[in-house]
């Protein structure tokens, strides 16, 4: 998927909401722009906020949401008078649970190694950032050429093993990405 929904965004703001019927929503609640759902930024506005309810306006329609009950990460929300149940998790707890629950096919880290010896010129992201497959992470200079090293999967940057200015050998580990497929 070529969407850029998680590019250079703070992973702590990515959540997964799963409805009782199994339907999943990836939600990004950013600091300075509108939220994104399943990769698409939403042109949505808050109209009103009460103690336990929100009213949104979207596509020219009002959506009145009232929190009916909440137990841990499970919430029942009444939207325009009809109840929907969700369980919500941060991306981290989602991954953690994913690893605990499925030992057999546990999610592997996707390591990115240096394709050639060279010097790290620039690093665009930091640990905890979200990336899409193909997003540039850092620039490696080799033989007077600048090479962009990109993410090999959708996920979270788990570890950055190098620093700008550092020289690396071929196959040296540069970045660990925790892949996320939701």
């Amino acid at each position, binding site marked *: 998927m070529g969407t850029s929904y998680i590019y250079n965004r703070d992973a702590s*703001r990515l959540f997964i909401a799963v409805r009782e019927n199994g339907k999943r929503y990836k939600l990004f609640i950013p600091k300075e722009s509108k939220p994104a759902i399943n990769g698409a930024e939403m042109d949505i506005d*808050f109209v009103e906020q009460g103690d336990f*309810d929100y009213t949104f306006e979207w596509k020219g329609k009002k959506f009145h949401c009232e*929190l009916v009950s909440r137990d841990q990460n499970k*919430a029942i929300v009444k939207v325009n008078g009809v109840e929907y149940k969700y369980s919500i998790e941060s991306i981290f707890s989602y991954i953690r649970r994913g690893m605990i629950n499925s030992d057999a096919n546990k999610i592997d880290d996707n390591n990115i190694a240096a394709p050639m010896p060279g010097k790290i010129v620039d690093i665009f992201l930091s640990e905890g950032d979200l990336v899409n497959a193909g997003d540039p992470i850092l620039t490696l200079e080799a033989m007077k050429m600048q090479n962009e090293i990109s993410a090999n999967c959708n996920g979270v940057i788990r570890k950055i093993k190098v620093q700008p200015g550092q020289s690396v050998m071929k196959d040296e580990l540069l970045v660990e990405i925790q892949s996320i497929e939701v």
Partner: protein
Amino acid sequence: MKKRLLIANRSEIAIRIIRAAHKLGMVAVVFQSDREPEALYLSYADEVIPARDAHNDKAIFLDAERIVQLALENNIDLIHPGYGFLSENPDFAQLCTDKGLNFIGPSAQLIRDMGLKTVAKSMAIEAGLPLVPGSDGPVRDAQVAKEFADRIGYPVILKASAGGGGRGMRIVEKPETIERNFKSASDEALAAFGNGDMFIEKYLQNPKHLEFQIMGDKHGNVVHLGERECSLQRKHQKIVEEAPSASVNPQKRAEMGEMAVRFAKAIGYYSAGTIEFIMDEDGSYYFMEMNTRIQVEHPVTEQVTGVDLVDWQIRVALGEHLTLKQEDIKITGWAMEIRVNTEDPQNRFSPQTGLIDQISFPSGDNIRIETGVQSGAVVTPYFDSMVAKIIVTGTDRADCIANTLDALNNFVLNGLKTTVPFCRVVLQHPAFVDATYTTRWVDQVFTPDMLENEDDEMIGALAATIMYAQEYLQLSSDIPWYKSDRLNVWVLNKRLNY
């Protein structure tokens, strides 16, 4: 001296009647029941009589003796019974009359007659109204039943004379099965009620419920104010009503209306009344019963005719002549009424009781609100679940549907679930839009998943996630498109819990 009108009712209809009383310059008096001592209607009345009914088996509104006693103590002139409760109780009407109180409604005798189905039907036959074809009395045996069914056509319904609750009842589709069904239904009735007598009637598979509003005075004048269609029902109770009906053209309206007037005149009816018909798919219609009270759905008729029915009820009770002429009554535009019941349409319309945290109604030129509650009201289990009515008009039916949907989109009730989402589904359903819906729509078509839609589901996920995220990230202050200084929900939640 100003006349004193006592309302033996509560909630929205009490407020509606108070408005009518004030229009006529009367003093409006209501009861305060201990079962809802802070009800909204109390604040509209000029005087409130404390009913002190906390320790009585029945709420004041059902206690005929006590109503009359308190009315006499409080120098009441007229009593308006509203709908439900004692409104169609002939003994109550008689008691009022005996004690010199002016009961707003028809005579006690007529209330009694119309309350007895067999009496009402025989009076209807006399007045030349069509009845659903059926046996006048019990049919002797299966063979007679079969001959009868062959004559009136299938399907037919077999009903035990003593029946009830569906026992001893069979719908028969074809001649081959009538004898077997007759025997089993009759045996069932005999076992259940000790009486195996069976009636037979034509069965209407997809009927519409139509009713004609009439108004008569004590001097023999009667007019009709057109029909209402109330086919949309759940648990045999109306939930969406409209006036006029798309199934009644001007010619049929004149014909059925004339019939309703003829019936009312024949029985000497005065006050507001409703004559109910059941209409088959082919347009044939049959008399069902007459309601001798003002009805919940009377506003739709008022909206399309411009006639104030409650006002006329009171004036007729005072002996005034009806100045309405049939030729002056015109139906203009379309009106629909949405009943706001605190019920859960996702769960078999089970009643919801408790606190209404917030309620806010749509407003506009084409919107009329009749409510018995406001924010902070408590819905108790003592009374019915209807808390308000939203009545919307339009230039024609399609315009009215669009306006009603718009109005419902601006209705908010926090704290309890209501029938409003269900009504939104109804208004958008093809069978409602093309007006082919019948009384069986809820049973045959409606499923709770029709209440859900993808947009709502997605926005719900967003709301749930923002609520969760605020706690998780303590984000409340740094979502810029979320402009509010109010306490965020999760902080409040924490305070409540810890």
